[in-house]
């Protein structure tokens, strides 16, 4: 038994010496295979003649029906609304996955609550953000929220839409967390949860309520499809913004610590 173990150890050590060469061989083999794959893909894509796709002229009458004049928004929310619903759900699931993995200290949201791995916590607690940063944030955040609202609304007739607006909202949230983490900790977690669920819930409700108008799922009633789309877009933008911010934080606020901070 003992002899067998030492034998295995010896074999492992001798393997370690060979690993260097095997790594090199492996790297060469993979890069050769990938080069072949890329060449093949190049040939396959370039061989494909520019197909007789549905061009803008063929789609033009459909765009008029869609309720919005921006073609990308019409495709995203009307023609391929199902895709976008699933996309919003994927973002929601990613947020859910992150919240189920880790808790963060709500007063110090950039640090995982496990103290063992962070012996030297960066100190965000200080006497509050510096004057310039605080003033900048105070000016920038409302402006960012305003522009996010405009972008979301503008998605109906030009470049823009829920995702652009949501990304800007997410950026505003991340800036706020970096600058004033203590202010974030005063937001009740229930409100954050409500905000995350709002977009997918509105999307689903609108989709289901289309049955009431005699259409299929996500087949909006013909006159006034635009207002339905706007409703979905604003809900989705708010949810995307809040979800992106929570993705950045990397965990759910620890309720125990929240209670602790409420007491003093």
């Amino acid at each position, binding site marked *: 038994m003992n002899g067998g173990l030492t034998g295995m150890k010896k074999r492992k050590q001798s393997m370690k010496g060979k690993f260097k060469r095997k790594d090199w061989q492996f790297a060469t083999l*993979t890069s050769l295979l*990938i080069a072949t*794959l890329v060449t093949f893909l*190049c040939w396959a894509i370039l061989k494909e003649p*520019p197909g007789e796709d549905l061009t803008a002229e063929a789609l033009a009458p459909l765009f008029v029906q869609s309720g919005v004049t921006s073609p990308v928004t019409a495709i995203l929310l009307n023609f391929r609304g199902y895709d976008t619903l699933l996309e919003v759900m994927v*973002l929601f*699931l990613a947020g859910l996955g*992150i919240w189920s993995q880790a808790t963060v200290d709500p007063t110090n949201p950039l640090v995982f609550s496990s103290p063992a791995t962070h012996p030297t916590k960066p100190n965000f607690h200080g006497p509050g953000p510096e004057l310039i940063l605080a003033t900048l944030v105070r000016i920038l955040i409302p402006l960012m929220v305003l522009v996010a609202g405009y972008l979301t609304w503008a998605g109906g007739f030009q470049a823009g839409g829920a995702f652009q607006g949501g990304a800007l909202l997410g950026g505003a949230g991340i800036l706020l967390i970096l600058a004033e983490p203590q202010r974030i900790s005063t937001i009740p977690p229930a409100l954050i949860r409500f905000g995350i669920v709002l977009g997918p819930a509105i999307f689903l409700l609108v989709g289901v309520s289309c049955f009431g108008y005699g259409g299929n799922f996500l087949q909006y009633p013909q006159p006034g499809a635009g207002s339905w789309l706007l409703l979905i877009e604003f809900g989705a933008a708010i949810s995307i913004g809040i979800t992106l911010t929570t*993705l950045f934080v*990397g965990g759910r606020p620890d309720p125990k610590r929240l209670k602790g901070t409420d007491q003093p």
Partner: protein
Amino acid sequence: MTITTGYIISALLLFGIGMNGLMTCSHQLRKILAVNLMASGVFLILIVTGFGTDGSAIDHVPHAMVLTGIVISVSTTALALTLACRIQQRLNRSADETAEGNDDD
């Protein structure tokens, strides 16, 4: 050899570099970056196919798909990064424990 051909070849090269990194790099952060690089390559191909050669109208469907893909890519990256952080935490903790055990001996 049009501009579109050049775009497609460089996008595929980006995809290949990402795939190579995914297979040969062992560090998790590098793997996540490699997957992102692959995704960028695919997005570029989609954008180019919607571009419309010789002045024909722009096809908006691939562009909408890219917009969807970017959001999915951000979601998966965030989830992967959190998982990598958790793995690193566990590894650090077990390393600390073994170090403490050795000190006791």
